[in-house]
Structure formats: C-alpha cells, structure tokens
C-alpha cells in the first residue's frame, strides 16, 4: 500500500497537482481500492491530524512574523545588525547571517525568513555591489537558521508527532542555531577577500546606540517568546498568541508602522500561508496512518538494521536519506511521515528523541535551501527577480558550513542536549 501511495503521489505531483491534494488523493485511492478500510478513514485522519493545540501555534508564529515584516520592523532589525557587524570582512553578508539569527527568534519558518528578510537584505547587498545571485543564495542558506533557533514551526510539528516537550526542543535548538550562524560567518570571512566582498565603515557608538534604540522593542520579542516558555510561564502555543498580541501592539501603537486597514490583509495572508502547511499535515496524516497499519515502519527499520546496528552508521544513513528527501519533498510532509518511522529506531539505539528532533529538523531545513525544489530558493529567486538556476548555483558554497554543523549536531549530542538538561531539571 505504501509503495502504491508513493507512486500515485509522485505521478500527481509531476502533473503539478498541489502536494497536499496529491497526498490526499493518493491515500484516498489506496484506501478505496487496496485496503479493507472505509474511505471515510482518510477524512477522519485529516481532522485528527489537524486537531491539535500544539499545532495551532503554527499560524500564530507566522502571524507574528508577518506583523513584524509588514511594518518594516525587519528593516530596523537588519540596520541594527548591520551597524554591529557590517565592518567585518564580508560586511553585508555577515549582517545577512546576523539578521537571520536575530529574526529567527521571532519567526519560526525558513521560508518566511527567506521571503521577509531576504527581500530587505538582497536589495541592500545589490546596492553595495554584491552579485544578486550570491545575495539570494546566501539569504536562502541563512534562512535555515530560522527554524533551528526558537520559535520553530518544524519543532512544533516534531513535538506533536513524537510526543516530546516542544519547550525542550526549543531550548535544544539554541546552541546548534548559534553554531550555524558562527559557521556561516566564519565561511564568509574566510572567502570574502578572494571574492572581493565589500564591507561597511565601522559604525560609531552613537549610530549603534540609535539603531538599538529604534529596534529594542522588536528585539524583545524573542525574550517574550523563549523566556516565557523556558520560564514555565506559558506553553509554546500560548507564547505564540502572546507574541502576536505583542507584535500587534508594538507595530500599531509603539512604532506606528501598520494601520487598521492593513490588518485584514496581514491576517488573511498569514492564515493562507499557514494553511499551506496545515492542509499538507492533514492529508499526510492519512498516509502516515496507512503506513502504520501496514507496518511499513517495521520493514524500513529492519532494512536499516540489516545494514548496520551501529548508531553512527544508522545516523549517517538517516542523514543521507533525509537530505535527499528534503531536496525533493516539502519538509513538513517528510517530518510527519518519517518521525513515526524513525523515532522507534533511534530510541532503540539509545539516541535521545530531543537530540534526534534537532538532527531531523536541521536535515530537512538544509533541504529547504537545496536544489532542485528547496522552497527558500524559489522564494529568494522570486523576491530578487532573478532566474532560479543562478540562485541554485550560488547557494552551493553556503551549504558547506551547514553540512559541517549537521555533522557536529549529529555526532555531538551535548550540543543539543546540554541547554535543555540545564533548564528542565
């Protein structure tokens, strides 16, 4: 049944059927013709997949980011980071990575970061003489940081699927997220002379202080979200709702950058963007159920264990498989399909589910920035108004630091587990 679902799904997607509908049609066809279960099971599973208090955080994080983006608060954050690091080798490229690290504390989605921040940064980098393809490729690669540093939509999905604490996952992502930022910054510094990247003059203390003052309220958003969750004040979903209200208040009343008439558009855009992920989660839930009923997971685990029972070899195979899958299929769908299959395998090998959560999410987020179908690549090519092929080539060097950190995160569990172990005793 699983193979039939996969074949029908890929045939439909090749025809350009939306992925969510393709998953739904494939599972409906298999349920109707190849399984003993009633067709209504597909639709019952769709609602069961979506009906989750944890998952309801997703539209709220997207709404928070859109409220910030709509009023140009993103520009203030970027300017602040530019003042801080713009004079380093590779100036604006460094600011791009730094701004992604800061904005990742507000948004939880790589694609949202690529679209929101990418737009601002690609424009600034082009004005300073960077090639548009390089600026877009870097923006796509740096957007990977977004869902690793909390809040994170993929961590919310993984937490719901694996039934582990989203708060612990958020804490586990902080150090790997910083590691990615540092690795990318080092890579840019090392290659900036050869590539002739320009840099800003060093900003004066007054300029830094001014840009800090102008962005301080926005910079406090991650403190509200992450501090609230880690401090046990509220759940990740409640933190997301508090962040929405906070973003609304500062955009509307403190910065006065959005007006009442802008709100319907922001609300609708956020809900439609969220539904793209949630509709896929709904339809993939029925596929996941079919796979569980058929025991596809057990077969898959047995096949992997037949190759090796060494944890490092299994993790290597999982990483390779996820990187390939992440380049071809939407990351949320893979997360829902693969988490129930892989989790029993890795926990049986003694791997912590929180650590594995960081590994699987990082793999899939690298996929988001990897050709041929990495979503961030499409988004940055669209906002930069340049051909996709150029971005696909330009992103490749920036995948090197991401892959280095992936190896570190995979084989040094304490990089992910140290912080949650300190905070959640």
């Amino acid at each position, binding site marked *: 049944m699983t193979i039939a679902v996969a074949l029908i799904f890929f045939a439909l997607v090749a025809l*350009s059927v939306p*992925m969510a509908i393709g998953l739904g049609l494939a599972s409906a066809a298999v349920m109707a013709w190849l399984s003993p279960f009633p067709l209504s099971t597909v639709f019952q599973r769709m609602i069961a997949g979506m009906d989750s208090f944890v998952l309801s955080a997703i539209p709220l994080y997207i709404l928070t980011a859109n409220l910030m983006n709509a009023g140009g608060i993103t520009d203030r954050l970027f300017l602040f980071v530019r003042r801080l690091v713009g004079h380093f080798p590779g100036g604006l490229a460094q600011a791009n990575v730094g701004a992604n690290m800061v904005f990742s504390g507000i948004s939880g989605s790589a694609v949202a970061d690529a679209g929101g921040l990418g737009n601002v940064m690609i424009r600034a980098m082009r004005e300073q003489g960077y090639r548009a393809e390089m600026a877009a490729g870097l923006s796509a690669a740096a957007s990977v940081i977004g869902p690793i540093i909390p809040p994170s939509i993929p961590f919310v999905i993984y937490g719901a699927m694996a039934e582990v604490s989203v708060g612990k996952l958020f804490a586990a992502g902080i150090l790997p997220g910083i590691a990615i930022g540092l690795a990318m910054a080092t890579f840019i510094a090392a290659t900036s002379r050869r590539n002739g990247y320009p840099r800003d003059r060093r900003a004066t203390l007054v300029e830094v202080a001014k840009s800090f003052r102008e962005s301080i309220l926005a910079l406090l958003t991650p403190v509200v979200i992450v501090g609230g969750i880690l401090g046990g004040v509220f759940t990740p979903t409640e933190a997301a709702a508090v962040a929405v209200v906070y973003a609304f208040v500062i955009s509307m009343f403190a910065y006065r950058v959005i007006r009442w008439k802008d709100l319907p558009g922001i609300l609708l855009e956020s809900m439609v963007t969220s*539904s793209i992920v949630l509709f896929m989660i709904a339809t993939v839930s029925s596929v996941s159920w079919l796979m569980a009923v058929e025991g596809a997971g057990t077969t898959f685990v047995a096949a992997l264990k037949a190759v090796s029972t060494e944890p490092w070899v299994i993790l290597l195979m999982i990483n390779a498989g996820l990187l390939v899958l992440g380049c071809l299929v939407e990351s949320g769908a893979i997360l829902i399909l693969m988490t129930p299959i892989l989790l029993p395998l890795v926990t049986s090998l003694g791997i912590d589910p929180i650590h594995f959560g960081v590994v699987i999410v990082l793999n899939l987020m690298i996929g988001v920035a990897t050709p041929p179908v990495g979503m961030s690549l499409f988004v940055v090519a669209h906002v930069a108004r340049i051909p996709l092929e150029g971005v696909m080539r330009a992103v490749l060097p920036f995948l090197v630091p991401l892959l280095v950190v992936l190896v570190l995160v995979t084989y040094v569990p304490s990089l992910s587990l140290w912080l949650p172990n300190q905070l959640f005793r």
Partner: protein
Amino acid sequence: MNVLDAAAVSIHGLSAKANRVTELALLPLTVAFVAIIFSSVLTRFVFHYPIVESVELSRLAFVWAMCLASAIGIYRHAHVAIFNLRDRMPPSWRRGVVIVVHLLCAAFGGLMAVYGIELSVRVWPTTFPTLGWSQAWLYLPLAVAGVLIALHGVSHALAPQDVAEP
C-alpha cells in the same frame, strides 16, 4: 456566448463571491482564535482564573480557520506544487494538464464534502468534554472547505488559461 461559456462565467462569479465570503468569515475567526488563547493566559496569570474551555474552543477555531484558509489557498493557487514538467510541455498538452489538475482538486474537494458530512452526522451524538457541544462541529469545516475547493477547482478548470494557470 455558448452554453459552456455562460456556465463558466457564472461558476467563475460564484467562486469569486464564495471566496470573498470565506475571507470575510476568516477574519473574525482568526481574531477570535488569537483572543481565546491570549485571554486564557491573561485570566490564568492576572485573575488566577483558568478558562477550562479555552483549549477546546481554540482547537475548534483553529480547525475551522485552517480549513477555510485551505479553500482560499486553492482559489489563489497558493498551495505548493511543482510545475517543472508541466511547463516543458507543448501549449496544447499543458492546457489539458491544467484542466485535469483543477478537476482532480475539485474531485478531492467533493470527497471532503461528502465524507465531512457523513462524519459530522456520525459523531453528532458525541460531545466535547468541557464545551458540551456536538463533535460534529469539528468535522463540519471539512465539508464546508470541501464544497469551496470543489467550486474553485471547477471554476479554475473552466476559466481561460491566464486565470487557470498559476
């Protein structure tokens, strides 16, 4: 104007109006969804009075909002799809593929509508533990979104190429 063109125009108009109504319904639903969760935090910490119904209410608002937004996504061609193969086809083939894809979307919407109603009827006697409302409210958005997706799918399939093709 032949019969098919007239039908296409009226279905297209109906699809646009239905989408506008869906958008108007989604706005207060979204505000309510945020307000429910935020107020539950506020009442718990400020007034030490947790609203026990808030989790079920917010889940309901969330499922309704996402189902309606999914239908708007179909209307706007917003859902993730891969066009590499389709865009390399000769124009005559491409037009055929576009129509088939929209009809497949409409068919899935039709299935959502039929089974959404069936499930709603089946679970009608069962209720949410704290709200006391019928569980049918959880499955009804599937039916509503299904009808909308079917309508938008047929409308796109009948529309001229520049409208039908994202």
